[in-house]
Every structure is written in C-alpha cells, then in structure tokens.
C-alpha cells in the first residue's frame, strides 16, 4: 500500500478545502449576502444592464446542483486519499473534470456577455473575484487531473477488483 506523502496530504487539503469547503462557503454567501455578486446586478437605471443582471442571476442560480457533485466528489476524493484507497483517483478525476467543465461554462458565459471586457473587469470587484475563482478552478482541476493520472494509487488494485480477478481465475481453473 503506497504511503501518504506530503504532496498527497497537500492534495487532500486542496480537495477538502478548495473543492468542498470553499464551494460550500460560496453558495452560503450567494444565498445570504451580496458578497459574491458583481456590482452591475445592483444597477437598476439602465434597462440593458437590468436585463443582463436577470440573465446572470438565472445562470448563476443553476449552478448549486452541479456544484453539489463537485463538492461531494472532492470530499470523497480527499477522504479516500487520506485512507490510501484507490477510489481517491476515481472520485478525484470525477471532481476535477466536473470542476473544470463548470469553470469553462462560467468563463464562456462571462466572455460572450462582455463581462470580462477590461473596462468591466477593472471597475467591478465582484467580477474580479469571479475571474480569480474561474482561473483557480481551471488551474486546480488541471493540476489535480495531472497529479492523479500519474499517482501510484491509479495502478493499485482495490479489494473489489482483486476479488473479481480471483473469482475469474477460479472459474477459468474450473473450466479447464
């Protein structure tokens, strides 16, 4: 059984804090404060901006269910990584893939609606925070996938697959 290295401990902390804790904190803040909202959503004078704010809020409100998958699989990946179990790789790859996918959807929306135009980005601290979150998600997901792909646990057999292999071998032996 591979030992838990310092990098594995760091990886487990990133998955638990970044992938689970901060995602939960973001959504608690989203539903109970204005902390995560860009400034432009409070602009009620310009009808075009009001329309964009409505679309933006509708788009953002669709994310919690998808982020649930990221938060839970990240927590499971950290849980199994601490236990040096091969399932850490499975859940880690699911979590990282989902996180990267959601980050790219968010980036795509913000780019297509001009929210990441330099003038908007420089004047709105909420959008700056969103850009930092988007970049962190892409970098974190890429690093996690890269690391898990070359992790010794990826090649380690878990108990279930070992049992299946034994059953297949005994059936083959019985057949011969």
């Amino acid at each position, binding site marked *: 059984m591979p030992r838990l290295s310092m990098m594995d401990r760091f990886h487990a902390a990133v998955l638990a804090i970044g992938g689970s804790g901060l995602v939960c904190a973001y*959504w608690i803040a989203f539903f109970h404060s204005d902390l995560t909202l860009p400034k432009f959503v409070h602009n009620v004078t310009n009808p075009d901006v009001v329309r964009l704010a409505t679309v933006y809020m509708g788009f953002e409100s669709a994310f*919690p269910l998808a982020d649930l998958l990221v938060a839970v699989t990240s*927590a*499971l990946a950290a849980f199994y990584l601490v236990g040096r179990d091969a399932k850490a790789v499975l859940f880690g790859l699911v979590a990282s893939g989902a996180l990267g996918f959601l980050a790219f959807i968010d980036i795509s929306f913000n780019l297509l609606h001009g929210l990441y135009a330099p003038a908007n980005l420089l004047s709105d601290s909420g959008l700056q925070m969103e850009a930092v979150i988007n970049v962190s998600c892409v970098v974190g997901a890429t690093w996690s996938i890269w690391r898990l792909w070359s992790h010794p646990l990826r090649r380690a057999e878990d108990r279930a697959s070992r049992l299946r292999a034994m059953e297949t071998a005994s059936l083959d032996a019985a057949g011969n």
Partner: protein
Amino acid sequence: MACFIAAVGIGLVVEAIARAFKLWSYRSPLFLVVNIVAVFGLIQGYGVGWIIGGHGALRGVFPVLFMVGAVLGILIEGLNQYWLHAWSWSDRPLFGISRAIDKSAFVGVAWGFAPLFTVLVARLIVKASMGV
C-alpha cells in the same frame, strides 16, 4: 429551536434503525449522545439547517443544504474512520457495501439528507405550533 428539535428527532430515528439492524455500534454510550445532540442537533440541524434553510424561500437552497450536510458528513465519518473510532461498523453489508471505508463514505454522503429533512420537519413543527 425548531431545527434543533427536528434534527435531534431525526437523529433518534436514525440511531434506532441502526440499532435495530445492528449496522454500527458505539465505543461508549456517551458518543451516541454526542452524535445525536451535537452532530445531528447542533451541527446539521441548527448549524446547517437553520443558517442555510431556516429563513426565506427554500427554492434553490435544497442543493446547498445537501451539499454542506454531505461535506460535513464525509468530514465527520473521516474523522471517525481514521482517528476517533467512536463508532465501528458491524460485519453486516450496508446496501451491498461490505468494506468499512466504503460504508463510511456512503453514510458520509447520506448525511446530506439530515439538514434537508431537518428544515422540512422544522417548518412542519412551526406550522403546527402556530395552528396553521
């Protein structure tokens, strides 16, 4: 307060079912009390249920309730599995799961239902107490 009472009630039901089916056992009865009062009542009920879903419309908040409950549940199960050993699993399979580590992970995710049901039951308690 309604969230705390509802969560403790759910905790009692869950522990009664677990005891009836001999799913897990506690190292000391004190841990059973701590689990029902502190983990179910204070953390999942008051902490998660009331803070996230205790006030305002529930629409849209359900995934967040499950998310936070499940993440905390996995943390609690992880702490028990690797360090505390306050409760241990019996040899009985749980929905076909036989390994202790997998049972902990499964139950950790299932903790997500605790704040969800807590909020629903708490709202029923509040409605009943107001005679609505």
